[in-house]
């Protein structure tokens, strides 16, 4: 392969594209993180089914966004600083993230086919349309709404859609008793849940730092580096804060809460990973770590059953992250942020509610009681996730 004569501009083009492609690959890898997190937090009898959902939702998101979503969200995209395909790929993998949030919240009781149908609607319409309003240059962008990497545009919209689904689905059998009693349903595999969290943390560097979209130029480079540092700082502080809350409140270190804490830190910093100092990023993360536990605790008391804490991590903390933008970004205004939150959450929730409701009325969205008892693995997939490991505790 002979050396072609390479120009500075083409080098910059190559480097920006490579940076975006690697960032996108890291976000793709987050799909594995969600899959492991959710597979670890459900019971063993529903594990294979949640894996199917995670694998397919990623696949569906990519295909739907290729066919319709991308052009709906961005129109005709012209990029000159990096390869158009790199830009497409980076945008496409974000859709799957939004959808992954939903699979966790409705786990252990939603029908596979209904979930997959919903994911088509989500990735073809719900996500791209609201994306067009902000990142696509629409009215939210004009109004000054700031959401750098998607605390709202990706995470909150997913959580809003999930909430609509959860409300129509109802809680898992056996989760809530009469007279307010709450029965915990422990997840089957903690190492898997922890691995998932580590994968997400790792992949999130691509999510946040890639959202600068350009690496070359001193300012861009510094912004990308700041995104790495702040993303990491927020997650680290949030994990510590969540630990301290569980330790002080219950005298134990609840692993799943610490995992949710770290993820909450990541979601919170996503709206503005570049502008804060690392110290402010740590503070934002710490707040998220506390908030997420309070939220999980309260939603459970409200009998809103969310097996993996997705509503709190991506919804409640997503809102918090959008508000926290004003602490570091001089261009952000509280009103514009509130407008963005209301629009995104309202849109995501309302449209999803209609879709879920139509499905509930027609094909149904919940597996029947017998299937739920036996487990979705056998009823939906026909196989068991761990066929040789006996169940040690009754459901």
């Amino acid at each position, binding site marked *: 392969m002979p050396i072609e004569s390479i120009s500075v501009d083409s080098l910059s083009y190559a480097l920006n594209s490579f940076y975006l492609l690697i960032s996108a690959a890291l976000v793709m890898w987050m799909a594995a993180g969600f899959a492991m997190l959710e597979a670890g937090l459900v019971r063993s009898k529903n594990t294979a089914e949640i894996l199917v959902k995670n694998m397919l939702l990623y696949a569906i998101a990519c295909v739907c966004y290729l066919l319709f979503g991308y052009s709906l969200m961005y129109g005709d995209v012209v990029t000159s600083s990096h390869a158009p395909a790199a830009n497409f790929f980076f945008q496409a993998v974000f859709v799957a993230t939004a959808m992954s949030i939903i699979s966790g919240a409705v786990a252990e009781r939603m029908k596979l086919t209904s979930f997959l149908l919903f994911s088509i609607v989500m990735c073809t319409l719900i996500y791209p349309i609201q994306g067009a309003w902000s990142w696509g240059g629409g009215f939210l962008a004009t109004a000054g709404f700031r959401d750098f990497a998607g605390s709202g545009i990706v995470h909150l919209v997913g959580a809003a859609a999930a909430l609509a689904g959860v409300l129509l689905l109802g809680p898992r059998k056996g989760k809530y008793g009469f007279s307010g009693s709450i029965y915990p349903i422990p997840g089957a595999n903690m190492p898997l849940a922890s691995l998932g969290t580590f994968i997400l943390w790792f992949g999130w560097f691509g999510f946040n730092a890639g959202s600068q979209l350009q690496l070359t130029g001193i300012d861009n480079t510094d912004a990308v580096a700041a995104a790495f540092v702040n993303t990491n700082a927020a997650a680290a502080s949030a994990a510590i804060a969540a630990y301290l809350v569980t330790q002080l409140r219950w005298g134990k270190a609840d692993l799943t809460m610490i995992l949710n804490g770290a993820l909450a830190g990541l979601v919170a910093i996503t709206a503005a990973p570049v502008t804060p100092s690392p110290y402010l990023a740590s503070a934002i993360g710490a707040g998220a770590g506390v908030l997420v536990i309070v939220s999980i605790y309260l939603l459970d008391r409200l009998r809103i059953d969310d097996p993996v804490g997705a509503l709190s991590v991506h919804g409640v903390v997503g809102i918090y992250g959008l508000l926290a933008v004003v602490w570091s970004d001089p261009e952000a205004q509280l009103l514009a942020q509130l407008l963005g939150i209301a629009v995104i959450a309202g849109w995501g929730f309302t449209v999803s509610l209609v879709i879920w409701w139509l499905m509930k009325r027609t094909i149904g969205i919940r597996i029947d009681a017998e299937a739920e008892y*036996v487990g979705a693995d*056998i009823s939906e*997939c*026909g*196989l*068991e996730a761990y066929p040789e490991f*006996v169940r040690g505790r*009754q*459901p």
Partner: protein
Amino acid sequence: MQLVIAIIKPSKLTDVRDALAAVGCSGMTVTEVRGFGRQQGHTELYRGAEYRIDLLPKLRLDIAVTAQQLERVLDAIVEAAHSGQTGDGKVFVLPLQQAIRIRTGETDANAL
């Protein structure tokens, strides 16, 4: 004294335990077992080949009782474990010659 062995559906454990407590029987030993009987298993699918799972998950409860308790205990179990579907399970009663509580060395009725 008798040893009562009850084979029940796993989902009935809490009900049976409550029913037993209600008749004053508070101790038992639970084993996870697999049962084979009239109840049909389910079909699984793996890589394009289907196969039956015949051995179904059941719980076995071992409960040592005094002769006076026996009748009430049997009634409690049968009632609480009953769903009317095939596979509800069986109760077996075996004569128990002796019982000892390891902690104290107490024997027979005192040991239960």
